[in-house]
């Protein structure tokens, strides 16, 4: 099978994902699972929804993710939590 060369942006996304998982390892076990679940659902959702060519949006998400990762790395931060917002139709 041919080696599919990853573009620079794809490598950045993967390294961000890896960074999140590594940061999760330093947290207590229950929070670690929650962080991993939130991060993996977010990344998988975006990989399906976001157009591969929409560089501006991907770079925006990368910057947002890097800032959140820097916050997560701090030893004071214990866990991540996420809330799903559904826009009401009324």
């Amino acid at each position, binding site marked *: 099978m041919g080696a599919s060369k990853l573009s620079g942006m794809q490598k950045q996304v993967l390294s961000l994902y890896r960074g999140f998982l590594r940061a999760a390892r330093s947290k207590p076990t229950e929070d670690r699972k929650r962080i991993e679940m939130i991060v993996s659902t977010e990344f998988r959702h975006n990989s399906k929804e976001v157009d591969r060519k929409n560089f501006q949006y991907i770079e925006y998400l990368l910057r947002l993710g890097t*800032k959140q990762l820097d916050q997560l790395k701090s030893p004071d931060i214990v866990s991540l939590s996420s809330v799903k917002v559904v826009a009401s139709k009324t």
Partner: protein
Amino acid sequence: MAFGLIGRVVGTKPSRLSTAARLIPARWTSTGSEAQSKASSGGGGANLKTFQIYRWNPDNPGKPELQDYKIDLKDCGPMVLDALIKIKNEMDPSLTFRRSCREGICGSCAMNIDGCNGLACLTKIESGSKETTITPLPHMFVIKDLVVDMTNFYNQYKSIEPWLKRKNPASVPGKEILQSKKDRAKLDGMYECILCACCSTSCPSYWWNPESYLGPAALLHANRWISDSRDEYTKERLEAIDDEFKLYRCHTILNCARACPKGLNPGKQITHIKQLQQSG
């Protein structure tokens, strides 16, 4: 709220104009409610002006676009910020921009108006029927509409250690470190900087190397601390920025002096640092 405002007006003394500061005339501008009552008396013959504003929404990401808005200048205050607030209040509440003091002292509303960087609260709306184009600060990552990511800019400011550093305690312990009037005058033209980022984002050298070049704003502040007679770490400060990229990316393009809304000249301060590096 009104209490605090009144207290401030009573307490201020007439400010002495430094050579570097520009005279910014104070103006009683009509508030939105008063203006609307005036509109009815204006009747027909509205003075419409089109504003083309950069829009990009991260929640519905697509390509960024310039959206047109028509404003009746009779109903609106004289500054671009008045127009933006009017658009946000009456036409499109989703327009996003930073603003705070509306008097040119906080530096929040820095943006690119008709190709020139400036503060929206200090830039007058050009009369005439030509369209005004408002875009965010150039070569900065956009968070939403006219709001840009300033973290790199602030980190560069932090990296020059903008605080007083001393090796010896004050000559009279517990009292102020004294400074002659002549030494204090050396800081004029540098302390007024409000960190609006208009200068750094107008520098082409900063566009091409935003991470390694410190930019005119940070270097202006570096010179402010280098020139401060009370600071004892001058040599260390000069050595810290004596770098091919941090300082010497400046090629005296001097777009910074043109863009500064407070009338400062960062290019001159950078030349001063370069001279000190040469002699020291």
